[in-house]
Each structure stands twice: as structure tokens, then as C-alpha cells.
């Protein structure tokens, strides 16, 4: 804690804080808990909407799904612990986000993981990636929540600072939302779940510190997850909530007992007494400091109705979990901590929460990458086949099945669209509806231009949902940035948020929860700014959905695009250039949000109306990769395509692999062509006929008929399926 902050702490209590109090202050005022550098910027997000039942500020956001049903969701980072101990770091990250969701009274139904690792040839990457993936699998599979989607990207900017972001969604009754509030004078404060140990003390501070060479020496700040215990906790909490004895509940995440108690009292405007002697513990001679700051996993704090402690005890006994009354709600606005008959901390709750320091850190935008498009340095090839194969065989664009095959993505039998598609779709049993989920982010775009990058991330997430037919409803995020004390990083942060907020407004997707992870740096080098968007959408009729795979020989292929733009603009083939020569630069794709909204609306209309049979958005690798993925989507019945590029200017490779925004590749039964044309006309969306599904090869010709590539699907599939062998072995 800085001296300035310390003196303020002293002022608030009108006396010098003791060691325990200092620990509490330092944990609560830490970046991770207080959002001191980010709060003023986060206010720019739109957070309201007719469907929003709970916006940011709670453990998770909640959105109405109609028919009495709602969905709670949130995303969180576990970057630093996962770099030190990839298996347990990632596993406990899953545990934490699950608790955030079931705390709201929701039953978790899906997990998604957004991962960033260093270069594939960096010596730690295989160990880190292997450990993270098996850690996510180890926790999620055991607790029985399917991991249905995510993203994985390798880039040297993450060599020494990987990103592990996990999103969880759960369903609940719209009229039975639980919140983390400690209200009602005299109500008991109850501790449930695992006993407290010395593990993870100062985890919250670690999450807010960059890595130096001593990172590997840091001691048990990493915890071991116990997914079985979490399953018991989940079932017991949901059962208890059903009984109605719970007033408020919150998980003990970062800064454990300290933050859960202070935040619950803060939200209710009350105070709390905590009696540490009653806290279940698994180690001897723990000090109040340790008890208050331990980050032992699988624990919750709840406030129950007075007199109903017995019910709580009974339920937790049945699930073989410790339960203890550790305090009560008071009206004096103070957090008082008792231990062995004495008061060991006595602090004003407001000083810890609402009145925590707020920084308006200086901003100074800096260009992170050259502004010239490096494609000019590449020789133009006549045959683009080898380039497509190289792109498909690159770990960033290759099939991620070696990852998601380790995740139980089917448990609960709701997964209509498993990982591999634009968005995951889960049916909601007992209704006709399905929920669509995706995570998206492109750090390179943000490095080139954080404002545009933020906008593009939101647009792509929404587009991915629209490609299944689902209407985007709301989003969460994980804002992974470098050191906020550097004005260039702060400028990236501020601009990315403005871009995201702008897109949220234009596309009607309020932000209902989120997470900030700063200090993603090693030895003074920051990661690329990496805001990740997690978005939820709703499909009213699960039966009317689309996937990205081509379905039938003879179906026509169209490109939906903004009406005033060429179907494929020149340039911006970032991933293609990166794979071919390792260079980055230029501009992120241009985007008009109005046109984006129109393209998405048409895609949804076509899917619901039954005249679009498959839809796939263009992202990294442009039309070339989108075609490849659509041809290979169903390995057992892969289907080729014969395509002619629409007219346009610029190099052929730049257009074929260009990453233009707001484009969707759709396949349409020949008989439906008229309906699509009419609808596009009405919607003011551009439509380019580019070919048809046919044969067992992907063939692309230039507008003048000159062949650009002709690749057998068997060869394409082999390249694509083996892309991760280098990282995960065969």
C-alpha cells in the first residue's frame, strides 16, 4: 500500500490502524477489489435495458429471458495464478466464477474459457497451455457444468503473462434473485463451506502486481481447488435459497472474509460483527490477520433470517459441509472483528467500500504498432492454396478440438451446438427456447487502435450470436490490460471502454457484469490490451437455429455485407500476414455500427424464416478461413464449395483473407434465393452471390475467373486438425 493510501487509512479511523486493520485496508483498497483505477471509466458502459434485472455491482449480472426465467452470468480472470501454477490456477478460476453465479440463486449451466498463451515455440507455452486446459477440465468436468465454448489465441505478447478468463452462466427464476447484502439488524452472519487455511493470503495483491523475476518464488498464494466440495456447496446453497431463509449471500473470493463481509455490509448500509473464534479452520494458530485475508476456496458468507439458523445447519449437515454462525448484522456502519475476547479490528465500512480511493490516472495515447499495412512486404503468390493451408494449420486458426475435447461439453444434455461453432447453443428444458453464448476479443485490433478494437470485440460477439439465429441480450467482460500506472496503458483502457460502450449502445447490449485485470506485464513490458467480451443471446425457438457448416450440395453461397461498402474491401489481412511473415501493423477493420446491426438482423431473420441454412461470420483469416471452416464443420460429411470472389480493388490475397467486419457468409437453398434478395433489399443490406456448395474441394477463383486456389478438403482437414499438435501433442 502506498504511503498516501496509508495515511488516509489512518485518518479514517482517527488512530493508527493495527496490523490486521492495515491488512483489511490494503486488501480492500487493492486494485482487484476497489477498482480504483478503472471505476471512473467503467461508468461509461450502458448498463440498463428492459431485460436487465441486475446490472454491475453484484456477484453477477441477471437478464430476463421471459416466461419467468432469467440468466445470471459473469466472466472473471485468473491470469496471475495460472501463470505460476497452470492447473490449479485455472481450476480455482473456474471455482470462483461458478460461485459468483450460484450466489445469485442461479444453477450454473455453462462455462466458457477465453485463453491467451505465448508463442507456440516459447518454451513454457506447452506446459502452461496443457496445465490450464486440464485445470479447467478438472474442475468443470467434476462439478458437472459443461464447458461449451471459448477462444484460444497464441501470441508472444503473452509469453510471460498468459490470460485465463472464464465465463459462467446460470439460470434462475426471475423473481428469485439473491444478492450480496447484509441487512436486518441482529440477523446472523453464517460461514459455510470449506475450513479456512493459510492458503492464498495476498492473492488479491498478487492479482494486482506485475510479474518480476521473483514471480516463481512466490509462496502458496496459489490454492488447490476442490471441485467436489464446490459441488456440495452449490447444491446446499441452492437448496437453502429455495427455503427462503437467506437474506444475502456472497462468495469469499479475493480477500476472503474481509471483502465478503465489508461488501455485504456496504451494499446494505449496515455494519457487521465478526467473531473469528467461530470460523472453521484447518490449520492451527491462525492469526486474525490470516483468517481475515485467507483466500481458501469453496467458502461462502451468508446472512440468514434470525431464528432460522437451525434450517441452515440441517441442510449443510446433510451435504457434509461445515457451517458456523460467525457474527451478526449491526446498525453502526462498522466492521468489527472480535478474536479471543478482544476487538482486533474496528473500521468504518464506507471507508473500505464506497469511500475507497478513486484514481483518475493520467492518459497518454501511444501508437503500439506501425500504421503501415505490412502486406506490402509479402510477395504476391499466384496460387493461394498453400497460404490457406498454412493459415488453417496455424494454432490460432486451427481446430481447437484438442482443447474442448478435454471439456465435458455435453453434461446436462442441453448442448445443441457444441464448441467449434460461432456461438454455443443450449436448450432450456421445459421451454422452446435456447440460450446462445460466446466470448470474443482481438488484442491486435486493440493494439492498433483501442477504440476501434473495443467496438469490434462487441460487434463480433453479437455477430457470433446472430449467426446462430439468437438475439444478443447483454454482455459481461474481462478487461485485461497492462500496468495502469503507465499513461499509455491507461489511454488504451479508456479508449477501449469507449469503443465497447459505443457498440453496446448501437447494438442494444447492456453490460451487466465484468472484471478488470490490470498489471498484466512482465519486466516493464505490457501485454497487448485484451478486452474480452462474453455475450448472451436468446433464441425463442430452439428448433429454428443455424450452424456454420454447409449443409447441402447445390446450396447457394452469399456474403451479407454493409450496403454502402464493397463486399470485400482491400487489405487488413492481419492474421494472414502474421502467419506468413510475423508482422503486424495497419488499421483494424473499419466498422459502421448501423450497418453491423442491419447485417445481423438480416441474418437472424433469414435463420428464423428458414431461408438461411447456415451462417458463419468472417473474422481472423477473412472469407478464406470462413469458407474453410464452413466446408469442414461436419468432418463426417464435409462439403466443398466453388466460389468466385466479388469484384473489388486490391490484391487478391488481401481480399480473400481480409478481416473486414460486419460480414456473414450464408448458405441458402436455391429455392430461397428470392426471399433472401427481397429481405436484403428491405433491410438495406448488401448481398453478394459468391458461389455454391459443391464437391469435395474448396475452389476459389478471382472475379475474372482466374483460379486462386483449389484445395482438396482432405488436405485442408488434415492441416486444420493437426494445428495444435505442437502444443498438446498428438
Amino acid at each position, binding site marked *: 500500500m502506498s504511503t498516501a493510501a496509508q495515511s488516509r487509512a489512518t485518518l479514517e479511523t482517527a488512530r493508527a490502524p493495527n496490523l490486521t486493520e492495515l491488512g483489511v485496508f490494503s486488501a480492500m483498497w487493492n486494485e482487484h477489489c476497489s477498482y480504483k483505477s478503472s471505476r471512473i471509466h467503467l461508468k461509461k458502459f450502458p448498463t440498463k435495458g428492459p431485460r436487465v434485472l441486475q446490472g454491475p455491482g453484484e456477484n453477477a449480472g441477471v437478464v430476463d429471458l421471459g416466461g419467468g426465467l432469467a440468466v445470471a452470468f459473469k466472466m472473471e480472470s485468473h491470469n496471475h495464478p495460472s501463470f505460476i501454477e497452470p492447473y490449479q490456477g485455472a481450476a480455482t478460476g473456474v471455482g470462483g466464477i461458478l460461485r459468483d453465479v450460484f450466489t445469485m440463486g442461479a444453477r450454473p449451466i455453462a462455462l466458457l474459457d477465453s485463453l491467451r498463451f505465448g508463442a507456440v515455440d516459447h518454451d513454457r507455452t506447452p506446459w502452461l497451455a496443457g496445465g490450464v486446459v486440464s485445470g479447467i477440465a478438472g474442475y468443470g468436468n467434476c462439478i458437472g457444468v459443461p464447458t461449451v465454448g471459448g477462444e484460444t489465441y497464441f501470441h508472444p505478447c503473452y509469453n510471460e503473462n498468459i490470460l485465463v478468463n472464464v465465463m459462467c452462466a446460470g439460470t434462475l427464476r426471475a423473481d428469485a434473485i439473491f444478492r450480496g447484502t447484509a441487512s436486518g439488524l441482529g440477523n446472523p452472519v453464517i460461514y459455510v463451506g470449506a475450513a479456512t487455511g493459510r492458503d492464498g493470503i495476498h492473492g488479491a495483491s498478487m492479482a494486482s502486481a506485475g510479474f518480476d523475476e521473483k514471480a516463481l518464488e512466490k509462496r502458496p498464494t496459489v490454492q488447490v481447488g476442490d471441485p467436489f466440495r464446490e459441488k456440495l456447496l452449490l447444491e446446499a446453497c441452492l437448496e437453502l435459497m429455495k427455503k427462503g431463509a437467506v437474506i444475502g449471500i456472497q462468495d469469499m473470493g479475493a480477500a476472503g472474509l474481509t471483502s465478503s463481509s465489508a461488501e455485504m455490509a456496504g451494499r446494505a448500509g449496515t455494519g457487521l460483527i465478526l467473531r473469528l473464534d467461530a470460523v472453521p479452520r484447518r490449520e492451527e494458530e491462525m492469526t486474525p490477520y490470516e483468517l481475515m485475508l485467507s483466500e481458501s476456496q469453496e467458502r461462502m458468507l451468508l446472512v440468514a433470517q434470525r431464528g432460522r439458523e437451525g434450517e441452515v445447519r440441517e441442510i449443510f449437515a446433510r451435504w457434509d459441509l461445515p457451517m458456523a454462525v460467525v457474527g451478526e448484522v449491526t446498525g453502526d456502519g462498522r466492521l468489527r472483528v472480535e478474536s479471543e475476547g478482544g476487538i482486533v479490528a474496528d473500521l468504518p465500512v464506507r471507508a473500505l467500500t464506497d469511500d475507497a480511493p478513486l484514481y483518475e490516472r493520467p492518459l497518454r495515447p501511444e501508437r503500439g504498432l506501425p500504421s503501415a499495412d505490412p502486406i506490402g512486404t509479402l510477395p504476391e503468390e499466384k496460387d493461394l492454396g498453400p497460404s490457406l493451408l498454412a493459415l488453417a494449420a496455424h494454432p490460432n486458426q486451427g481446430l481447437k478440438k484438442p482443447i474442448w*475435447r478435454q471439456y465435458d461439453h455435453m453434461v446436462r444434455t442441453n448442448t445443441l451446438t457444441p464448441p467449434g461453432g460461432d456461438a454455443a447453443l443450449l436448450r432450456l428444458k421445459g421451454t422452446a427456447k435456447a440460450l446462445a453464448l460466446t466470448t470474443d476479443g482481438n488484442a491486435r485490433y486493440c493494439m492498433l487502435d483501442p477504440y476501434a478494437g473495443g467496438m469490434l470485440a462487441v460487434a463480433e460477439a453479437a455477430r457470433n450470436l446472430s449467426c446462430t439465429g439468437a438475439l444478443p441480450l447483454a454482455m459481461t467482460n474481462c478487461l485485461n490490460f497492462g500496468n495502469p500506472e503507465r499513461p499509455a496503458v491507461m489511454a488504451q483502457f479508456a479508449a477501449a471502454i469507449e469503443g465497447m460502450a459505443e457498440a453496446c449502445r448501437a447494438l442494444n447490449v447492456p453490460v451487466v457484469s465484468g472484471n478488470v485485470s490490470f498489471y498484466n506485464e512482465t519486466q516493464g513490458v505490457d501485454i497487448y490490451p485484451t478486452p474480452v467480451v462474453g455475450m448472451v443471446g436468446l433464441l425463442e425457438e430452439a428448433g429454428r437455429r443455424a450452424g456454420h457448416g454447409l449443409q447441402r450440395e447445390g446450396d447457394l453461397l452469399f456474403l451479407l455485407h454493409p450496403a454502402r461498402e464493397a463486399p470485400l474491401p482491400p487489405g487488413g489481412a492481419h492474421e494472414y500476414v502474421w502467419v506468413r511473415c510475423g508482422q503486424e501493423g495497419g488499421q483494424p477493420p473499419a466498422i459502421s455500427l448501423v450497418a453491423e446491426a442491419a447485417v445481423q438482423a438480416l441474418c437472424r431473420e433469414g435463420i428464423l424464416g428458414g431461408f438461411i441454412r447456415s451462417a458463419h461470420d468472417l473474422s481472423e483469416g477473412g472469407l478464406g478461413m470462413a469458407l474453410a471452416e464452413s466446408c469442414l464443420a461436419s468432418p463426417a460429411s464435409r462439403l466443398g464449395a466453388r466460389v468466385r470472389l466479388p469484384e473489388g480493388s486490391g490484391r487478391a490475397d488481401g481480399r480473400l483473407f481480409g478481416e473486414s467486419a460486419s460480414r456473414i457468409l450464408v448458405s441458402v437453398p436455391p429455392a430461397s434465393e428470392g426471399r433472401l434478395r427481397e429481405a436484403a433489399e428491405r433491410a438495406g443490406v448488401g448481398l453478394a452471390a459468391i458461389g455454391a456448395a459443391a464437391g469435395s474441394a474448396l475452389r476459389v477463383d478471382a472475379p475474372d475467373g482466374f483460379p486462386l486456389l483449389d484445395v482438396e478438403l482432405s488436405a485442408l482437414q488434415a492441416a486444420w486438425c493437426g494445428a495444435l499438435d505442437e502444443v498438446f501433442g498428438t
Partner: protein
Amino acid sequence: MRFAVIVFPGSNCDHDCYHAIKHVVGAGVHFVWHKERSLAGADVAVVPGGFSYGDYLRAGAIARFSPVMEAVRRHSAQGRPVLGICNGFQILTEAGLLPGALRRNASLRFICDDVWLRCESSRTPFTQGIEPGQVLKMPIAHGEGNFFCEPEALAELEANGQIVFRYCDPGGQTTRAANLNGSTAHIAGVCNREGNVLGLMPHPERASERDMGSEDGLRLFQSALAVAAS
């Protein structure tokens, strides 16, 4: 005709089994909590997938001692049908109700994927409606599904017709590549000597609806229903 689905605290396919039996097959079904000692009048016992008690030591090692397993043992001793799916299979082998053991997958990784199974025997109540040689598509989702038994034990299983399912390719060939977890003799499912207890690693309950990618798994439940009705 009623099915009982056993529920351990770490079961996570209990609801999926219940859903498939009740809403797809249309049969009677109830849950039985692991602390119970009776199956409450069920005709068929289903031990579902999941992680019974966390399964940290060895899958199923602790579950075999639970009170409900006494009831399952009695049910089996009376010659009545018992189906163990995934973790249920692991538990039944640990309990000695089925032969062999399930090691960690040869790849050491959890695998969730579709597989094809060749039915090898119609003698169990769950496969009476399935011709030997028929190929079924179902998913697996496990980290410890690598069936093991010693060569003598294997010879005995073969001789007694206790091998019920083997991993195969879509054409029914038992190729190495189709044996995703490295099981001895491609074994995906076995029954006890009497044939009333079946255990398999793949998940028939996840392959019971078109929306889930296959309906082949339904046939196991329907077969048990038909046997009970006759």
C-alpha cells in the same frame, strides 16, 4: 416398471438419466439418495455418471462403501437389472459387481467425444433388443475409462460372453484409432457372469434425442423396459 437412479453427492449425470428415462422413454423413474438403503421398489437400478465422492483417489473407490450400494448389491444378487454408466461402471467394478478395473485414459487426458460401439452380446436386459454386430453411436466423457483386466480374466470374459460393447469405427471395425482410451481388447462395456449387471463407459442417456446428435442410447433403456414387460 420403475427405474431408480442412484444419486451420490458428486453424481452429475443423474438428471440426464432421469430426463431420458422419464421424458424420452416415458418410463417410471425416481432418484435414490446415496444414504438410503433401499431402492424403493425399483425394477432397474441405474448408477449414473459423475464423480461420486470427488473420486480423487480412484474413481468409485469410496462410493462402493456407501449405504445405497448394499441395496444395489442385493438387487443384483436377485438377478435384477443394474446399469452402470461411466462413473457407475467404475463404481460397479470397484464394488466387485463387475470384473476388471478402469485406469486413466492412455492419453492421460479427459476425453469428451462421440464414439461408435459394436454390440457383442444380447444377453443383458439392456441389449436384448440389439443384435450382436450392430453399431451404436454414443458419446464418452471420462478421464478414467481405460478398461483393464489380466489376460486370464480376459479369456474368461470372452468365454462367458461377458463382453457387451467394444469401441469400433463407424463401419464396425475395432481399429486402434477407435479405441480412444486404450482399453484392453477395445472393451467399452462388460456384464457380470449372470448377465444382469451391465457397465459401460459411454453415455446412452446423452444419446437419447435427435437434438443431442444420436438416439442410439435409447435402445438400452427401451430394451430393459421390454424385458421387464415380458
